[in-house]
């Protein structure tokens, strides 16, 4: 049953190729898949060839982390405290952005239901490279409390590459700040290249993703 679904991708009528009459009376053909998406595969971006420049750029990347404001799980309840007077992550160059196009850090705040994972993959792929992932809570490490649930994934690193894991249920804001500091260290050392890893092992990640997302009705790589 799942195979037939996979074969006929884009069964959504909004995605179908069709002829449309415009407001001016002219007829034209709309092919949303072609118009809206690109099927290109992700690229591996080489770091800058001059080490000093790359070091400087890495420093800037590390000190200006824009977080995607996508609360995927219950860990997102600790994001407002992080951004408010008690913990005030703005001090460390951390800000939240509402659109994936402008963010660099994806906080996976807790368990991921399969339905959310699909959106997470899309959002992750839309983020510009280099991008980083912080996985919050035990449930992203091994399933945690929901290890036997039929709808939550057990290991996040099989679907998207993870830079820093934060253990706990739920991790305190202090733990999150520590994770951010660790992430900064990694980026400054030049180890924040997980986006390239994703591009290099693209097929493996896609295979894992498609194994659990049964109705895959989007292009393989969502620009």
């Amino acid at each position, binding site marked *: 049953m799942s195979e037939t679904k996979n074969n006929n991708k884009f069964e959504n009528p909004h995605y179908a190729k069709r002829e449309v009459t415009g407001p001016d009376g002219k007829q034209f053909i709309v092919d949303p898949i072609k118009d*809206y998406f*690109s099927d290109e595969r992700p690229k591996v971006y080489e770091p800058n060839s001059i080490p000093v420049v790359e070091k*400087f750029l890495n420093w800037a*990347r590390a000190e*200006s982390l824009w977080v995607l404001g996508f609360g995927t799980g219950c860990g997102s309840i600790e994001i407002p405290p992080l951004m408010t007077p008690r913990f*005030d992550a703005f*001090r460390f160059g951390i800000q939240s952005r509402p659109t994936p*196009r402008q963010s660099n850090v994806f906080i996976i705040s807790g368990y991921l239901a399969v339905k959310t994972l699909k959106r997470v993959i899309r959002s992750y792929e839309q983020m*510009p490279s280099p991008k980083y992932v912080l996985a919050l809570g035990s449930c992203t490490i091994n399933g945690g409390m929901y290890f036997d649930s039929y709808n939550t994934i057990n290991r996040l690193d099989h679907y998207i590459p993870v830079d820093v894991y934060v253990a706990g249920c739920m991790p305190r804001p202090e733990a999150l700040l520590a994770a951010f500091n660790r992430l900064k260290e990694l980026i400054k050392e030049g180890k924040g290249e997980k986006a390239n890893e994703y591009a290099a092992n693209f097929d493996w990640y896609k295979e894992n993703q498609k194994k659990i997302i049964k109705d895959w009705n989007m292009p393989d790589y969502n*620009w």
Partner: protein
Amino acid sequence: MDFDIKRLGFTLLGLLIVLNWGLLMSSIMRKLGARVAKRYGIRWFQPWLDLVKNYALRSQISHGIMFYLGPVFRIGGGVGLFLFMPMIIGSELWLNYSFHGDLVLLMYFQFFGMLGMALGSGEGGHPYSAIGISRGLSQFTTIEVPMTLAIISLAIQYDTLSLIDIVKAQQGGFQNWTMWTNPVATIAGMFSLLGALSHSPFNLVKAPNEIPIGPPTEYHSTFLGVLQTNAAILHVVEAALFMNLFFGGATNWFEFILKTFFIYFWSVFVGVVFPRFRIEQSVAWFLKIPLVFGVLAIILYM
């Protein structure tokens, strides 16, 4: 006007100063806002870091040629506004390319960037961009009405359309500022400044909780860097325009920085404690109070 390498050099230097001052000003303003919220706030050099970071991102996706040109138009508007704006009065070097009748051009340039952005973000294809830009254009049209009336009132008062002449007429003590000689036009102008700088309650163009985040939704990496650069320049230049029109201009850089800071602070001051209007409320507001002051300013100086 002959080509003058010295003038060009000083104009570019002025642009650099304005850019850095704009970035510093935005970080100071954000710190002030944070202090009201009992926070420490960002570090003072954060805007530079964000800018470098955005230019340093590796991947970028273009949705087409107009998408690419959108930020170019936007920064064209900002830099154009700067080029024809006299910065420091009394110094030949910091007058940029200001000329007689430049007020008309400046008002055009205010609108220019917005139009370019409309074309560019339209091609981005995101519905939020389209909604944001249609809001932005309709709001800016209504902002222009009181602003134009205030400027025409000044033109009648000083009998000129040259910004330099208007500033020169205000020299010789703060009692000569337009603020005192034409308070009604000043009120109309300062109200429309609130909208032009698009802080709350008039920030419905970007409105993160409604249409995140409006026109720049699809813009990222270098595109966003260009937009940020423009925002830094535009905020200072916009404040400088009002400084020149209503607050006697500046005779040195210190005065320039002080005055632009307080003019910009006015919109932040209002913005911290007011929620955002809906688009029809915002349009209605501009067509009520500031418009009345604008018309009054014309009638008084007819």
